[in-house]
């Protein structure tokens, strides 16, 4: 059968996104649709697994298969999908509260395992769908509904954590630069292994500090650096990861911080080398071979 050419239209959904006008999520949605189209992955071959939050509504607006699960649990669901059918392009999405807050444990462990999937974190530096509480990435001193005297907890650094935690592709992008974001997403999906794309996503309703203007002024692209940023150098990557904190958020690098090759978890499983788990016939599994040690 001839496959029709895949275009952005294939990923458009008729439902109107329920986000605030001007929300950074629109940029991420547009970039993701384009990235999938440009990579030529047909809609039925991708699955987006999300948690709960504004960001996690994404599966509804990018027309692929989707699973909108529980708050903080996009990664374990995505992992199960990948292990059951590793031929699928699996994307996990969620916010900073979802992934770096309630789902933090899963984030740390998935990096060790290096499944071949892409994790997009919509990092708006607060909890938005619950009307603006502090999140693990809210900057020090920021006043929110739950921090009337300002945040006193050191913000979580996802880029540094990912570099140290074993992620094989660590990147950051800005939702206001969709062309750049699309390119990063394409690289992340093409990467064999766990790819983190932390997206700085302005929340136009609750975050009065980290606005489009804030990021436009401060973000610079690592790939445009002279001398060229070495994405294979872990120490340099780590150095860059701390730049926003060191410069009091005056300089925010975006792009690929670190990339390396390591066997994926799936690679270590001979039972799914030739066939995906879902491709096995289960209608008449003979178990009598297991009797030997039991008699």
């Amino acid at each position, binding site marked *: 059968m001839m496959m029709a050419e895949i275009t952005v239209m294939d990923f458009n959904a008729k439902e109107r996104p329920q986000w605030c006008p001007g929300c950074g999520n629109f940029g991420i949605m547009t970039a993701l649709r384009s990235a999938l189209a440009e990579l030529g992955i047909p809609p039925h071959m991708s699955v987006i697994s999300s948690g709960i939050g504004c960001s996690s509504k994404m599966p509804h607006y990018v027309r692929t298969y989707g*699973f909108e699960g529980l708050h903080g649990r996009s990664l374990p*669901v995505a992992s*199960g999908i990948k292990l059951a059918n590793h031929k699928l392009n699996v994307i996990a999405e969620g916010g900073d509260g979802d992934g770096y807050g309630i789902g933090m444990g*899963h984030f740390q462990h998935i990096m060790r395992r290096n499944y071949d999937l892409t994790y997009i974190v919509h990092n708006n530096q607060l909890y938005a769908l619950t009307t603006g509480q502090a999140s693990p990435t809210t900057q020090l001193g920021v006043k929110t509904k739950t921090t009337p005297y300002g945040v006193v907890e050191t913000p979580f650094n996802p880029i540094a954590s990912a570099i140290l935690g074993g992620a094989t592709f660590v990147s950051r992008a800005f939702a206001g630069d969709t062309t750049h974001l699309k390119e990063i997403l394409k690289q992340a999906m093409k990467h064999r292994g766990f790819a983190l794309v932390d997206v700085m996503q302005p929340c136009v309703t609750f975050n009065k500090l980290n606005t489009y203007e804030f990021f436009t002024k401060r973000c610079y692209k690592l790939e445009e650096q002279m001398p060229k940023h070495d994405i294979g150098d872990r120490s340099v990557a780590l150095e860059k990861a701390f730049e926003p904190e060191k410069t009091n958020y005056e300089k925010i690098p975006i792009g690929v911080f670190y990339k390396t090759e390591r066997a994926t978890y799936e690679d270590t499983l001979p039972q799914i080398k030739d066939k995906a788990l879902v491709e096995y016939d289960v209608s008449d599994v003979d*178990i*009598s071979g297991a009797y030997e040690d039991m008699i």
Partner: protein
Amino acid sequence: MGLSTHDLAAFPASFPDGAYSIRLKNACADKAVEFPKVVPMDFACKIAAQAGAGVMVTGRLLVRCFSRGGYNVVGYPEYPSLIRGGHNTVQVRISDKPVSSPSEKQDLLIALNKDAVFYQMPSMSKGGAIIYDELIDIGKFPKRADVNMYPLPLSKLTQEAGGTEQMKNMAALGASLAMIRYPFDVIEHLIRDEFGRKGEEVVKKNIDAAKAGYNHVKSSHFDSKWDIKPLRERKQLVITGNEAIALGALRGGMKFYAAYPMTPASSILHYLVENDRAFNIVVKQTEDEIAAINYAIGASFAGARAMTGTSGGGFALMVEALGMAAMSETPIVVVISQRSGPSTGLPTWTEQGDLGFAIHASQGDFPRVVLAPGDVQECFYLSAKALNLAEKYQVPVIVLSDKHLSETIFSTELFNQAKAKIERGKIVEAKDLAPLPQMSRWHRYALTEDGVSPRTLPGTPNGEHVASSYEHDQTGFSSESFIMRSKQVDKRAKKMELLLKEMAEPTIYGPRDAKIAIVGWGSTKLAAIDALAILEKAGVRAKFIHFTHVYPLDPKIVKKAFRGCKVLIDVENNSAAQFAQVVKESAGAEMDFHILKYDARPFFPEQIAEEVGKLAKNEFKGEKRIEVVEKEDMEYYNTQRYGL
């Protein structure tokens, strides 16, 4: 399961007739009903030592040894929650008649340390024997005139045979088999099969150690009253409840298992991971139970039959995702192997305390199924059935086992694989799908007549949809429409009618027309069936009504099962009579008596027989609630408590 007269004829005629009646008489001393000897041959030995001394391995070898000799065998382990020290035991009970539970007393004890002598003395049967290492000083311990002591040079024999101190258990195993005059070649073959993989040297050392113990006893010409010979060649399985659950799942087409270690469910994880490549399945140990169930749900959504397993505490962490499986209508099977709760409780001991939790866990209303196997055969078939039900009806299915059933080793007939068929339900394939209009989704949550909507699996063109934990419309898009909400709730609820049709009637054991009915669910079957045999000999005519399909309960089924019963005696391994509550709520039926045990041990058949016997003797008058607690309080965790 029963033996023919031919088999009985093969049994040695010289068998000392009175030997085994003593044990039961002793167990039932001072009881309301005089219990005579139950079975022609019923023998229990026990191996005991500190944790780490190889008690579990030796216990399993003994079970296989007798199983190969044609006996029905139960190997019941007890151990505290620690890795070194404490007190571990395996009681191996054998009979030429069907037996399914351990008994209160043992005839022969293999004591590998001095604690074992102290701990097990009270539960020795009259005329029983204790084999122990002569180096052990038991001078301080209370003695019993009716128990024979056999100090043997176990360490010395092991060393002389070229074995390490760790192999002392093999010498003891050999010695115990010689005590009962069981032929050595059975154990020799077994050691070859068991240790063959580890190489000839390991095999030889173990055989030599066992032989040294065996020959020493044989040449000592002890005045042993036992003469237990293999009955016949018999090919039966030796398997724990957890292994049977795992095998049932494999037969049931399970391709993915995710779990976090938790006693007493961990051996499902161990067994499956050991066999993952043989069966082409993926087994994942996750970072916690929340991840485990979410992994399994993800795999199931992608089209692999998926299962997770844990105990009550782990299930508590899974509850949110259980509701998600219900809302997203993703098939999922959760095995809960119960232990004594609440909270950490007694991690290595048993209870049936999580029934109410399994039935009610999660916010919101939705249908689910709870199955409770009562023996290893039921573990196998119900775990396969659970996967069918989950997928056919797209609902969560819980399989409730407990420490007693999960970890006890049973001899049993080979499973009949043809009886476990696969039914995958409504999965729509690409060839049956029309192209979707642009920008639209497939109707995953179509409002169907029977409440079950067809599903497509990711990777199928034109079946794109979002499975959602939010309330949703037919395409899976989040919806807060009041009408759609009600329709989706109704759609899911409709499955209950279909599920009720899948719920098997309880099985009735003993005389069907008996007026006295013992009622139980899950693992209490093990002791209750053995109790029926004791009661029958004592002239108490009772039957046992056993429920495996515990939720949802069809009132018609309950009423039919209880018809003609004059007295209903609920037997449960918990304090709140949880199943009786379910029966009352579902069918309006009230139990007359509750025999409850929640001291962390399972029922022994003698205990159920004693309480039912007392009730019968008093013409069923008296307290409605009867609590059973062990008379001998032997704590395995704190050996210091006894100055050991």
